[in-house]
Structures are given as C-alpha cells and as structure tokens.
C-alpha cells in the first residue's frame, strides 16, 4: 500500500483522478443511505422549485425531484452507461484491431478502410439518427448499446497501430519459431504486453461513452424517465431553469459532470504514464 502511495507522488494525475472518484463514491454512498432512491429521484417526491436548504441539500427541481437523490442515481446510471458502452467498444475494437494488424492482407485493408470512413463521420450525428428511430422504447441499456455501436472505431485504430509496431519484435518471431499458433500468440504474447495500453484505452472509451450519452440526453434522445445526469441537463434547458433563477438545478449536474470528466481525464493521463514509461512527465 505504501509503495502505491509513493508511486502516486510520482504520478499525481492518477492520484487526482482516484481522489475525484473517491469523493464521488462517498457522495453517492451518503445519498443511498439518506434517501430511498427509487422514490426520491423521481418526480413528485418533494415540493418543487425549492432552493438548497438543510432539508433539501441540493434543492429540488420543477418536477419535484430531490436533486441530491437525482445526482446519486444519475452518477451511477451515467457511469454505468459510459462503462458499458466503453467496455463493449473496447472489446470490439481490440478484437478487430488484433485481427487486422496480426493477419494483415485483405482483412486489414477492409477493417482499416471501414474505420477510416466511419471516423470521418461525427459519431453523435449517427447516434442522433439511431436514437430518433428508437425513441419510444429508449432505456438505459439500449442507450448504452447504441453508443457502444459507434465506440469501437477509435480503439480499433489505436490497437491496430500498437500491434503493428509490436509485430516485428524479436520475441514474436521467437514465439512463431517455437511453434505457437496465431491464437496462442495473440493471447499469451501480444495481449499481456498491451494490457496497460488497453487500460488507458478503456478510460478513453468510457470518457467518450459518457460524452456521447450526455450529448444524446441533452438533446432529448435519452431515456426520458431515468434521472441520469444528461436528462437533468435536458430538463434544465427545457424548463429554462437559469432564466428563472434556479441556479441550484444547473449547478448540481454541472459540478458532478465536471468532477467525473476531470477524474477520468486525470486517471487517463496517469494510466498513460503507467503504460508508456517513455513519456515521462516534463515539468
């Protein structure tokens, strides 16, 4: 444990990121203990439009939700969407990246062209089309799946580049000569070398997934009934909260979102340093 703390001094970004998520975690634990989330985060559970007070620590919104409960539920839901979408995207991206870079040939050309074309199209726009079409039955899991369907391109490209550079290394040639077949090489030689890189990619994927989910929900294409962070922003815009002076309604989700993004960014930077010791911090 103490060696970990010593490492954190060398890698302050990771420390900041972990700190942010610890704070968020503590915030949510308090929320779960204090409220019955299944009621308090939904409309008509509290008097509407109340500013923050002792009884309602973060205030209430125009539909009668307790904002503390909404933030607790929303953080968990949004992180869940981001994590699911990011993980699925990373898995697909890893498989495709490995296959493309290791086997080369026509499959590499096919995958690379597909990824290049799809990368020039802004993902959010395609997501808007898909989400518009499936609006009626939108729920959290469907939203995560939709986001995952466009989250794999970045990881594919990065992992393909990494595997391409690893491919010609002597240890791989030795593995080939010693008779390992392709699958064994991929799983037992390439993958362990790339694990730190995959971890850093996961953070990037999750950030992208949360970003996409916030964007979709802020436009009104999310799951309308769920108290996620993006939907809170949507209601803030819909009810013109700032125009009416209900600053607490906007402050709560914005603060939580800033903490989440800064935390993810710091962890990502920290993992980058962990994964690639050649990028030492230049202060």
């Amino acid at each position, binding site marked *: 444990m103490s060696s970990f703390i010593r490492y954190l001094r060398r890698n302050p970004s990771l420390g900041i990121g972990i700190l942010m998520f610890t704070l968020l975690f503590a915030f949510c634990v308090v929320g779960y203990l204090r409220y019955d989330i299944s009621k308090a985060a939904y409309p008509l559970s509290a008097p509407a439009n109340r500013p923050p007070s002792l009884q309602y620590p973060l205030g209430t919104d125009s539909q009668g939700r307790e904002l503390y409960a909404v933030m607790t539920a929303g953080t968990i839901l949004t992180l869940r969407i981001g994590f699911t979408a990011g993980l699925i995207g990373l898995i697909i991206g890893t498989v495709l990246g490995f296959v493309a870079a290791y086997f080369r040939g026509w499959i590499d050309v096919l995958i690379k062209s597909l990824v*290049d*074309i799809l*990368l*020039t*199209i*802004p*993902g*959010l*726009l*395609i997501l*808007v*089309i*898909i989400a*518009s*079409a*499936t609006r*009626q039955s939108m729920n959290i899991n469907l939203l995560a799946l939709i986001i995952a369907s466009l989250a794999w391109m970045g990881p594919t490209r990065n992992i393909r580049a990494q595997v391409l550079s690893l491919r010609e290394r002597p240890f791989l040639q030795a593995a080939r000569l010693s008779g390992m077949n392709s699958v064994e090489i991929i799983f037992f030689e390439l993958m362990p070398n790339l694990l730190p890189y995959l971890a850093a990619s996961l953070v990037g994927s999750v950030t992208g997934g949360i*970003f996409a989910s*916030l*964007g979709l929900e*802020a*436009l*009104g*294409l999310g799951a309308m009934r769920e108290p996620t962070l993006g939907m809170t*922003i949507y209601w*803030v*815009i819909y009810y013109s909260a*700032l*125009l009416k*002076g209900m*600053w607490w309604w*906007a*402050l709560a989700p*914005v603060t939580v*979102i*800033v903490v989440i*993004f*800064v935390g*993810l*960014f710091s962890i990502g930077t920290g993992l980058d340093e962990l994964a690639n010791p050649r990028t030492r911090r*230049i202060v």
Partner: protein
Amino acid sequence: MRLSYVAQRFLLLLATMWIAASINFVLPRLATGRDPIRERIIAESARGGGATNIGINEMVAEYRAQFGLDEPLPKQYVTYLWNTLRFDLGKSLSNYPKTVMRLITEALPWTLGIVTFSTVTSFTLGTVFGALIAWPRAPRLLSATIPFLLTFSAVPFYILGLVLIYIFAFQLKWFPIGGGYPIGTVPSFSLSFIGKLIYHAILPSMSMILASTGGWALGMRGMMVTIQGEDYMNYAEAKGLPERRIFFGYAVRNALLPQTTGLALSLGYLVTGAGLVEVVFGYPGIGSLLGESITRFDYTTIYGIVFFLIVSLGIVLFILDLLYPIIDPRITYEQ
C-alpha cells in the same frame, strides 16, 4: 502520382457520402411499427381541438404520396439518392411546406460564425500558448495556467457554457442569457445590430474557446518538446542563429504540422460540440435547429441536418487532405 492520390481521396469522399446517405435512408425505416406522418397528423388534429379521426387515413395516404413513401423501397432509395445529389433534402415535417434545405441555410450562418471564430481563436491561442510553455526561455508564469486550461478542456463545451451563463449572464449580468439577437429587435444590416449580434455571440464563443484552448496547448507543447530533441535544433543553435528565428522558423513551423492534423481530426467533435452549445444558449444555429426538430419529432429535418453535416465535414476534410502536401513538403503520396 499526385493525381491518383487526389482521385483516391475523392472516391473515399464519395464513398463516405454514399454510406452516410444510405445510413440515413435505412436506419429510420428499420424502426417498424411507427409512422411519423400518421403520428404527426393525429397530433395536429388533436391540437386542432376536435378529436376527429375522420379522413385520417386519406390524409396519411395523401401525405405519403407527397413524400414519395408509397413507392417500392428500391425506387424510394434511388429517388432519395437522386434528390440528395440535387440538394433536395425534403420538406420539414413541422414547418411544412418549408424545405429542409431552406431551414438549414437560414441557420447555417449563425453556426459558421461562432464555429469559425471559436476554432480559429482557440487554435491560434492554444498553439501560441503551447509553444511558449514548452520553450525553456519563455516566461515561467505561463506554466501556471496549464492546470486551468486542462481542467477546462476535460469537460464538454456546453457544460462550460452552462457555468458561463450562470456566472456572467445571471449573476454578473454582463452578457445576455441566450438567443442570437435581443428579443424584439428587427434584424438589419446596421452597425448597432451587428454590435448586438457580437454581444450575443460572445458567451457561446467563449465557452468553446475556453474549452478547446487547453487541448491545443497541450498538443503543441508535446510536439515542441519532441522537436527540441531533434538534431536539426541542435545544429541551428550551434550555427548561432538568433533565438527568435529558431523558435519560429524551426520549432513552431515543424510542430504546426501534427497540430493541423489534429485540427482536421477534431472537426467532427468541434461541430457537434458547437451544436450542443447552441442548444444550451438558444443560439439560432444548426445545433438549435437539430434540438428543435428532435423535440418536435420533425424527422425529415433531423435526417437532413445530419446528412448535411456529414457531407460538409467530409468535404472540408477532403480539402484539408489536399492541402497537406502544400503545408508539409515532405508528404508526397508517391506510390
């Protein structure tokens, strides 16, 4: 030769546009069981006060004929592709009979205004900042701004926009809360109106600038650090060139190239970010139009806007790709 590269990129552009158009065509039709025209007409008749269902089927059939939806699917596809080539994106469902293209051209100048201004400003500022921060003989003070810039760059543009609205528009009342121009003013070409336009555009632009500058600065700094380790930098210094010459002519010039690549890659992100900023600020650009059409279930406009944005971005990327060899003479694309 160059020509084959240009042809290759152009084909890629055409492929992108065709794939985007096809996605635009196929995906909405995959959602079975829903008929947006029927829903729309029922909603309108309900809003008209009389809960009359008389003639709904005939009206739906007539509108479907109008939109060409009663023809066999392959024919619809061909008609759709042909129309799209002629910039005919159909008619808006909620602003019928205004065409989608008309709505887009009305909203486009607003978006172009803040996007180009914000992108140019943040790119320039960020690049200059990043270059200075990485240069050892530059003021140390600049390094202190890095944490702030990084924090700002980690959050989405519109979140920063909400914060700016709260602080500057609501509390301090220095800027208007939203909109493109003051409510009740008549647009004209007078200087005062242009002044008001700029006044309303400041906060949306600032939220984009603040959020992007950090990213550019970080990238530029990284590139400058890498370049400072190169041999030619040593040689330039050994030759005794003046420091300013080394900084601008050698370091910055070479670091700019990956930066412009980064600019090209992040265009999609910038455009979608700008769209959401417009939704938050109520700024009447393409983003707001998209948000409105989503709220009003105006599907033709949604698909039209998405397609338009994809094609515009594709064309801009194509042009940027062609410009690279001019910026960087080392890139030759010979076979």
